[in-house]
């Protein structure tokens, strides 16, 4: 993690809370660690750990059928796991937001991360998503707030990509 390790993550959390997010589903990633901890600690939020990312697409569709809003947290390597699941969102018009921590794009040490990281923006676009990219800490909160409005006011599928430069390249 680089710079001030708290601000932009707190901004994202506040944006989610402001619109009444009630369910958080995730496959863990170090970049999402703080959000995941905050979700588990919040008694008003039902937090579900998934075995694979596409479960989160179904889970949040089910939440919407029951009148609740949610968000899916995942890493770029999980986006490809969801491709057929995304057809559920488009075919039924489900509102949807996922926050994706990026790998394979900025000072990546692991070559296995490159193919899916590089394909992530196009994968979302082809699945009919609105795609946003956050490179600067100050943009994180407003971008998530805008994506939430597009998801829940305008009933669309949205992906916010939190860039590897923003999160800080992973080093072993």
């Amino acid at each position, binding site marked *: 993690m680089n710079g001030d390790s708290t601000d932009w993550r707190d901004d994202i959390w506040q944006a989610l809370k402001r619109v009444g997010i*009630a*369910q958080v*589903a995730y496959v863990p990633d170090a970049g999402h660690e703080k959000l995941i901890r905050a979700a588990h600690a919040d008694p008003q939020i*039902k937090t*579900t*750990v*998934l*075995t*694979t990312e*596409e*479960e*989160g*697409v*179904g*889970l*949040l*569709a*089910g*939440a*919407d*059928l*029951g*009148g*609740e*809003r*949610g968000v899916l947290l995942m890493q770029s390597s999980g986006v490809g796991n969801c491709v*057929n*699941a995304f*057809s*559920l969102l488009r*075919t*039924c*018009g*489900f*509102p949807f937001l996922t926050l994706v921590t990026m790998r394979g794009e900025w000072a990546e040490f692991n070559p296995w991360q490159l193919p899916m990281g590089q394909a992530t923006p196009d994968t979302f676009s082809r699945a009919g998503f609105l795609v946003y990219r956050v490179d600067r800490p100050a943009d994180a909160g407003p971008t998530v707030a805008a994506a939430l409005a597009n998801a*829940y*006011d305008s*009933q669309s599928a949205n992906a916010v990509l939190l860039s590897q430069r923003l999160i800080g390249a992973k080093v072993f």
Partner: protein
Amino acid sequence: MLDRRKAVARLLSRRDDDLLVVSGLGSPTYDVAAAGDHPLSFYLWGAMGLAVPIGLGLALARPGNRILVVTGDGEMLMGMGSLATAGARRPANLAVCVLDNEAFGETGGQKSHTGLGTDLAAVALASGFAAATSAGNDGELEGAVDLLRHAAGPVLAVLKIGRDPVPRVLPERDGHVIRQRFRSALLQDAAMS
């Protein structure tokens, strides 16, 4: 072996508005429709492997309702990890019915993993479900129906069904209509999200 249409009709008999049904793509969707169309049935025509995740998200959102997922062995096998996810979350109001003909019935009847050794009731129990059972005759069906409709969840029942062809009963196919119809019936303020 059970008759799939009679078994699903029995499972959904005397249905009230507290019961929310999610049906897996293919024959289970047709079986649920054949038992009587209902706005609180969310029919899947795709998204294979997501019937249980959808049921889980709905169960967490609506703790006062009973959520019944009716799906096939192939669909359940594709989403087998979701049994671990539901077992970890343990919603008391989630029930999963697997209509198991041990074959991929829509695609030529190729033998599925349940005909090659996988016991989905055992998988559910090993994943943290509160109870699970298998039923292959009318007497066992009554116990399975009681489990699925009334027992504290998450619960799963495998209904061993025959492979005889049954008439197709095709419900609404437009996903936007299925979603809006379901939400309008369940939620008073469902005009918009």
